[in-house]
């Protein structure tokens, strides 16, 4: 088993922390993991992305050109990474602010209206967990029990009271994903 994922969006959307929780969940499931961020002058409002690899074998290159799964959370990321999904792979995007829709027919395309779902849940901060739920609905690469453990490891202890809220957001994300093109 090997899953190569890039999560790309605006700084402030929680792209890096979503990747960290996913990677920690992988460790809890006894997988090998790498988490490679775009680092540098990114800031709130700028672009940010992180490549996460989960594998049951040692991971060689943490730098990739194509991905099993692309999660694009803004137009720039969708434009940049749609072509980098492996044939037969998965593209998940948030339709908020998207004017040019994805066009590929050789991949599975899903949308998750995570901004709306997070607003319904009453906290914009759980946005990234809604997206994580959507991913896990399509690809259950880590078990929910290990995601909970991953959350506990990633979130400082003083905020552990917020874990149930994050789990609820993941659950809501699972229910809210829409499949637009299935192959």
């Amino acid at each position: 088993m090997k899953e190569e994922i890039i999560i790309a969006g605006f700084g402030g959307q929680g792209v890096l922390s979503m990747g960290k929780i996913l990677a920690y969940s992988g460790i809890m499931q006894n997988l090998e993991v790498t988490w490679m961020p775009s680092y540098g002058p990114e800031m709130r409002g700028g672009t940010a992305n992180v490549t996460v690899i989960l594998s049951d074998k040692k991971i060689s290159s943490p730098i990739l050109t194509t991905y099993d799964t692309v999660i694009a959370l803004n137009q720039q990321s969708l434009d940049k990474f749609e072509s980098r999904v492996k044939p037969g792979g998965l593209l998940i995007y948030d339709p908020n602010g998207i004017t040019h829709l994805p066009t590929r027919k050789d991949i599975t395309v899903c949308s998750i209206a995570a901004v709306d779902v997070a607003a319904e849940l009453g906290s914009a901060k759980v946005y990234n967990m809604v997206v994580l739920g959507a991913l896990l609905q399509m690809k259950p690469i880590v078990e929910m029990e290990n995601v909970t453990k991953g959350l506990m490891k990633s979130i400082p202890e003083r905020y552990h009271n917020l874990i149930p809220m994050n789990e609820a957001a993941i659950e809501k994300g699972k229910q809210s994903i829409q499949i637009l093109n299935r192959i």
Partner: protein
Amino acid sequence: MAEKILMKGNEAIACSAIRNGVDGYFGYPITPQSEVMETLMAEKPWETTGMVVLQAESETASINMVYGGACCGKKVMTSSSSPGISLMCEGLSYMAGAELPCLVVNVVRGGPGLGTIQPGQGDYYQIVKGGGHGDYRCVVLSPASAQDMYDFVDKAFDLAFKYRCPAVILADGVIGQMMEKVEIHATKPRRTNEEIEKTCPWATVGKRADRPRNIITSLALESDVQEATNLRLQAKYRKMEEEDVLYSTYMTEDAEYLFVAYGCMSRIVETTVDMLRENGIKAGLLRPITLFPFPTKQIQALVPQIKSAMSIELSAGQMVDDVRLAVNGAVPVGFYGRLGGNICTPQEIFDAFKKFNNLQ
């Protein structure tokens, strides 16, 4: 069972320093290695092990604080990235001359000048061949994972004290910034003053009546004395070449084509080797773990079985010189690299390999 933590390479350096008995860290922030000091400050080791963590006013001050600590036989270290390391090179040369052990971590970014904060390997010449003035070498370790970053802190200090010389962990922005699973092993306490006095009889820890004064200096104006120092240094470097070369191989047993790559590039080239093997091409990788001493003999041993060798680096071609010296004209030696913070992908290396070897 060892605890497994998801952490950045930079964080691993800091956690390892605290858990392996380091006495002091002196540094100045610079991307992409600022998490080293950030982690140390957050962990507050001065409250637990008594380790000193100090943000100096500059890199020049940091390396001279390291010099001072090392004179007393303490395990002291600093970390920086390329432009900051350039400022430390005078201190490194002085420490090599004065035969002082220390650890310097360089998380390399693209240069020259202020360059870019993205990863690079353009400091190979500087760190492996010199940097400061004079005939000196540092032990240079090249990590390729966050676990290596953790493990190499202790290894580097062992070698630095074995040879009384500066040791450098030459990492890059990828290895510093990437998070991976790190196993936290058993820990070493800081050495007591008595232990330091016993194991470092040269240290300036206060003269006792029953021994002569210890003097630590890199200055010897008399040529014969200075030459003797140099010959002693050179003898140490030859001993390192005999005893402390570290390297690893991937698929070299039956390899007809050899890649040589270190640090993050060794990880990326492994994927290229897999791709070539899927295409029926017998490629293999030798990864130097110590860049000085360089695994010259280990490359030479592979020469009879290979048709070519290729060095892959995030530079314009620096380590390739050492690969050429090892191969010594027996087979063609090629090079591929990217510059300015760009990273070669497995596919790019695959294409460059085919072009160099005239393969379809």
